[in-house]
């Protein structure tokens, strides 16, 4: 059986849960058990919908008691006018709380990922090999993703929730930049996983469920049924994220 580690999961109470979708930590764990996901890297809804700082303690509370299955990911932002944390403080707090990945929301939170804005934060994170997650839509266009990869060649970026209309935009970036990875959630077009492996390589894709806004049942099936080797499936399902996490040096 394939071992799945979910690299894209949002937990916590959110403003508008969709009808029938998971809400409680128990809901998420039930789905993970049912569809065969061992662990998930989770960020907190409050960190996205409201405040990065408020999201951090909420995440701690939400995963408490389930740390063996739910790994923490912090939603972060540039420290504009001391609104968040200095890069040095962030790294120290991440080490203290055993957090190995972060996620930015530049569009929702209205800031730039360019070096003049997020540069010190991203440089500090990349010095420690911390994988940086950002949703495709949050980057407001593939050209900005290209710039992100080129501006920060030492950083490792995971582009999440690519959706089904992005291949023609993203494929050339994967050819030009070796510091970018793709989350498999919502990468749903016909044979897309197999074609990604053929043209880019399985080592550049991370399994993600996209829960609660996407389906973990569907996401795991995309990998299980893909016409790729068992070794490629295992790399995508968990091997790649395990490798990235092992490389983190806080």
């Amino acid at each position, binding site marked *: *059986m394939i071992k799945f580690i979910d690299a894209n999961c949002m937990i916590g109470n959110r403003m508008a849960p*969709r*009808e*029938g*979708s*998971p809400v409680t930590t128990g809901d998420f764990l039930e*789905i993970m058990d*049912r*569809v*065969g996901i061992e662990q998930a890297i989770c960020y907190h809804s409050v960190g996205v919908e409201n405040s990065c700082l408020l999201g951090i303690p909420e995440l701690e509370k939400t995963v408490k008691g389930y740390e063996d299955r739910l790994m923490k990911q912090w939603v972060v932002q540039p420290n504009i006018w001391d609104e968040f944390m200095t890069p040095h403080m962030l790294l120290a707090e991440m080490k203290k709380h055993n957090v190995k990945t972060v996620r930015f929301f530049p569009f929702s939170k209205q800031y730039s990922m360019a070096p003049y804005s997020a540069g010190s934060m991203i440089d500090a994170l990349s010095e420690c090999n911390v994988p940086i997650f950002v949703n495709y839509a949050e980057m407001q266009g593939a050209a900005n993703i290209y710039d992100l990869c080129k501006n920060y060649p030492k950083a490792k970026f995971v582009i999440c929730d690519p959706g*089904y*209309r992005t*291949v*023609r935009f993203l*494929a050339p970036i994967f050819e030009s930049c070796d510091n970018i990875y793709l989350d498999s959630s919502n990468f*749903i*077009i*016909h*044979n*897309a*996983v197999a*074609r990604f492996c053929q043209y880019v390589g399985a080592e550049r894709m991370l399994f993600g469920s*996209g*829960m*609660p*806004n*996407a*389906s*973990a*049942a*569907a996401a*795991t*099936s*995309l990998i*299980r*049924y*893909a*016409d790729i080797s068992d070794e490629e499936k295992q790399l995508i399902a968990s091997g790649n994220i395990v490798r990235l996490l092992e490389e983190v040096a806080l």
Partner: protein
Amino acid sequence: MMQRALEGLPLDDIFIFDIHGHIEQSRVIHTAEYDAKGIIAKLDRMGVNAIALSSNPALQSDPWLGNDLTVQAAKENPGRIYAYVVPNPYYEDFDVTKYFDGTPGVIGIKMHACEQMTALNNPAYIPALEFANKNKLPILFHTWEPFEVEQAVAIGKTYKDAPVIIGHSGFTSFASKQIAIEACKSTENIFVDTAISSTYDGAIEWIVGQVGVDRVLFGTDLPFYDCSHNVGKLALSKLSDSDKIKIFGENAKKLLKDII
């Protein structure tokens, strides 16, 4: 069923009929292996018996070229590919009825008004709708926005002899869903499908709870969605196996009993 899905095995021990697919390349979305051969290979991989589809060229461009391609695929792959013919409201001389000349596998009408830059209540669609109603042919609607669902429902309530399928089940907004659900509850001929755009765990269970399992049909929107996405979503859902079997194919078999 769940165990087979967890092992990535084809669900070939049940009847699966996909009522919502497409063939050929799309203008806006990267597509590959989009011909009949590529589609049937995917059906085999998943254990899907057959698919009913319309062609992207018929939806996006030349209605003669596009519909000819769809019908050709159905002719060449009997029992595996079924064709929806797409009416076009801009050409008075384009006649959908000519495709229903006894050619096996041509089963119904697909309507995608927003792709054709018009509305479902365009009067130019009426001849195709009347033909479908007279011959009890299924009409599959692309619907996302509330006004699209409203217009599809209005057609379903007018042409009561035609099975009407609200494609995507109105899952793009609360209002769209509510209109689709209310229509299923208040009519005999309106159905929803599982090609739920922006789906999530719990969505299928929720819609079944709203409209009843007999009103839900299995659809993938292939090749925009990989077939495994929708097969897995249903097979690994919390529904009972008997409900899953109905949705996967038994409902479609009953609905299309004189056609497939």
